[in-house]
């Protein structure tokens, strides 16, 4: 039984209603768990980013002169594993989703608060295993764990890395389970499916992928661990196994995993675009259906990662065709965001700048995806820097932009303080410029034929100029990422206190105080309005200070 720690005269919020380390580590409050996740995720983001910077520095010169070949291999492996499994996949759902979904649907908490806490602990256990792997000398399988290299030929810490991701996978599954059940069972009276914010729809679609994809990754990694321990031969051609079976099972999860990363970002962008255009979303139904469509069709395309891997000609044709099907809902979303802005009343606060960036970079990332889905071109550019550039446009240009946009948008709600708008805009600009400078040259490098995961390109000095540009961009990007980290921390103490609805935005989360009270709502809300009812909100977005 904790005693309330609220000072007299102060309003009780989820932040101050209890103090002490135990009140955080044993909390079942979705908002506090979101903050716990935020810490872990930020930590791993900077670990992964540090590896990325070392990679870029190594590639500044053609010769392999900064680190050893093995070290380089470990750097890109751990950059990938840390970023994908400990940042990109959990970031938006576990932080923003966790914090906002119950409030957005008018619930006091997620359906299973204790499972939510468990899933944070699983994430942390996975993270500790990953750190153990890193500190003990790392792992150099590539984040894809391709067999038989990973199972028979390397003597780095493949097993602990595999188990780290295995455990983090269960965290992801439990988060998805919680979201699905919460969305079905915990909606406030009047909050019908057609009134759900697209942010919730996006997380619902994401959860479906997490639930049905992640178990396959889990069993695959378990098989890799068994292979390494007992040399069973399931993925080892020398013992009668098929290395392509590993790739099938791996990509069955890891392609849809891209949508785990990007769909929540799409949800965020829908919220931001509507708020800063003062408009209803254009084509709400189409937007919601497109999210579900991506989640389903995203599972039908995985072998487009394997066009040159030795799959049958006919399978390649099927998977190429299906890959184009998933591009249609993605295109619909881009068009609808653009149309939402039409005849709006647009203001350019930081979240909106990130949303602009997201739509632009996602468009480029998506269109280059069409190149890769086209069989004839894929043969040339797969496993080159073209692919590297493409997926960074989706994940960093798309997902990280959206994540930062969302963090700025809801930071007043989470912390109860405003961030400094000027610095925010500067950081958004730096991220956009730095990002493009880092990754656009890599498209060209890829078409020129520079293979990915190369430590040394002294045989092809013609690749250097573009690599130097890329490294320069990465430096700017690093500054762009550090800035928000600094001013968010600064604002927690010195920021202007935030009102309940600093943007005059629509949605239940803006009707509770900032920061929200422990149980979100004093009385169960009854929803009588459609999503994005900006026609009923006459005020504009306040002028930034």
């Amino acid at each position, binding site marked *: 039984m904790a005693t309330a720690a609220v000072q007299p005269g102060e309003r009780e919020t989820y932040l101050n209603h209890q103090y002490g380390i135990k009140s955080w580590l044993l909390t079942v409050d979705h908002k506090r768990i979101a903050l716990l996740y935020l810490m872990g995720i930020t930590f791993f983001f900077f670990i992964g980013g540090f590896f990325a910077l070392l990679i870029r520095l190594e590639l500044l010169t053609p010769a392999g002169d900064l680190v050893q070949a093995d070290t380089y291999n470990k750097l890109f492996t751990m950059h990938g594993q840390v970023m994908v499994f400990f940042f990109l996949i959990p970031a938006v759902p576990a932080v923003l989703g966790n914090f906002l979904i119950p409030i957005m649907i008018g619930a006091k908490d997620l359906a299973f608060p204790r499972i939510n806490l468990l899933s944070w602990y699983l994430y942390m256990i996975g993270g500790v295993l990953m750190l153990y792997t890193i500190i003990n000398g790392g792992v*150099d399988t590539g984040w894809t764990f391709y067999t038989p290299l990973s199972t028979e030929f390397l003597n780095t810490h493949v097993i602990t890395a595999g188990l780290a991701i295995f455990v983090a996978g269960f965290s992801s599954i439990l988060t998805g389970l919680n979201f699905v059940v919460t969305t079905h069972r915990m909606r406030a009276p009047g909050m019908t499916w057609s009134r759900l914010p697209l942010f919730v729809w996006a997380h619902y679609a994401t959860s479906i992928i997490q639930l049905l994809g992640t178990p396959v990754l889990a069993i695959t990694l378990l098989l890799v661990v068994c292979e390494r321990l007992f040399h069973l031969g399931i993925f080892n*051609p020398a013992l009668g196994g098929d290395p392509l079976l590993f790739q099938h099972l791996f990509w069955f999860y890891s392609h849809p995993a891209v949508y785990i990363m990007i769909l929540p970002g799409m949800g965020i962008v829908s919220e931001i675009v509507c708020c800063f255009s003062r408009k209803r979303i254009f084509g709400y139904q189409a937007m919601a259906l497109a999210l579900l469509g991506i989640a389903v069709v995203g599972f039908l395309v995985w072998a487009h990662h394997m066009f040159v891997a030795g799959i049958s*000609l006919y399978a390649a044709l099927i998977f190429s065709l299906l890959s184009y099907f998933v591009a*249609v809902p993605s295109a619909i979303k881009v068009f609808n965001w*653009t149309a939402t802005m039409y*005849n709006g009343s647009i203001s350019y606060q930081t979240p909106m700048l990130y949303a602009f960036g997201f739509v632009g970079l996602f468009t480029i990332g998506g269109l280059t995806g069409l190149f890769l889905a086209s*069989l004839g*071109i894929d043969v040339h550019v797969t496993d080159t820097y073209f692919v590297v550039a493409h997926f960074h446009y989706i994940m960093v240009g798309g997902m990280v932009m959206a994540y930062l946009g969302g963090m700025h948008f809801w930071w007043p709600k989470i912390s109860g303080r405003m961030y400094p708008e000027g610095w925010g805009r500067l950081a958004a600009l730096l991220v956009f410029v730095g990002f493009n400078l880092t990754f656009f040259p890599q498209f060209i490098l890829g078409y020129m034929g520079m*293979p990915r995961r*190369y430590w040394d390109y002294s045989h092809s000095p013609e690749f250097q100029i573009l690599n130097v540009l890329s490294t320069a961009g990465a430096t700017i990007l690093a500054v762009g990422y550090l800035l928000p980290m600094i001013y968010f921390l600064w604002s927690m103490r010195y920021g202007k206190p935030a009102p309940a609805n600093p943007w005059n935005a629509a949605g239940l989360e803006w009707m509770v105080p900032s920061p929200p009270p422990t149980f979100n709502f004093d009385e169960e809300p009854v929803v009588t309005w459609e999503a994005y009812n900006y026609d009923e909100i006459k005020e504009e977005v306040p002028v930034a200070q």
Partner: protein
Amino acid sequence: MANNVDALYIFLLTVSALMTISIFTMIIFFAIRFRKRAGHQAEQIQGSHALEITWSVIPFCVFMVFFGWGALIYFKERKPPDNSAEVYTVAKQWMWKFEHMEGQREINELHVPVGRDVKMIMTSQDVIHSFYVPAFRIKQDVLPGRYTVAWFHPTKPGTYHLFCAEYCGTSHSGMVGSVVVMEPRDYEAWMGGGGNQPLAVTGERLFSELGCVTCHRSDTQGRGPNLVGLFNKPVLLEDGRTVTADENYIRESILQPAAKIVNGYKPIMPTFQGQISDEQLNALVAYVKSLGQQPTGQTGGRNMATATPKTQ
């Protein structure tokens, strides 16, 4: 091939650039035209089914063009022309080993004459590698335990990069080499330097040394199937299936004879798994293939230069 890929690439680039520019222009135009200002209220629009359908169907049709064109190129890339020069390739950490039909062996360098189709028949001794020549726009993973095939048609003399494109361990980035495309005359001169035994002849010698010849006789009396004229022909198996006798089939039949039993024969052949090297296996395959090109049943065919296009 490179031209075909580039043409498609430029087409895709143009279409994508148009789409990107139009979306960017619209966003920037809307952002400026409809910026927040006094006296202007946002107009609420629910959406439009007609528009949604339009911008689903039109992109989809464009995508289908991307798909069809890409698929055509891929189809061509996966079907080597019948009378290509063949190069047997063994990849290992971290080098490329090539063996020409004429018997020349090379490491990390591949010499080919200009204007001649070259078919790479590749396998790996350890992990997955990938044979990538950016200038020819081809890439094919090289797998342990089976053959994969790639082909190209060099049109311009010169030296081109050869990369391993599938991450394969410590010296992945050191697993590079070059493809040297030569004028036919230079190539002849380079070829003539060796005094090598053609691969099929090596294979023929192995064929008798290993005792294969006692059962696989060139008449119908053998205890094993007659291999003359076998290559690229359909084979009826005992379980009723029919498979094509391609390189992988021959390879498997040597290493795992019991895997596919030819109709009418007994599974008495011993396995050669672990008893012959990848190079010896390549020689045997090359020999069996050379039999396929001689309907008369003589053995010891020379090389692909005498091959006639098969009609099948």
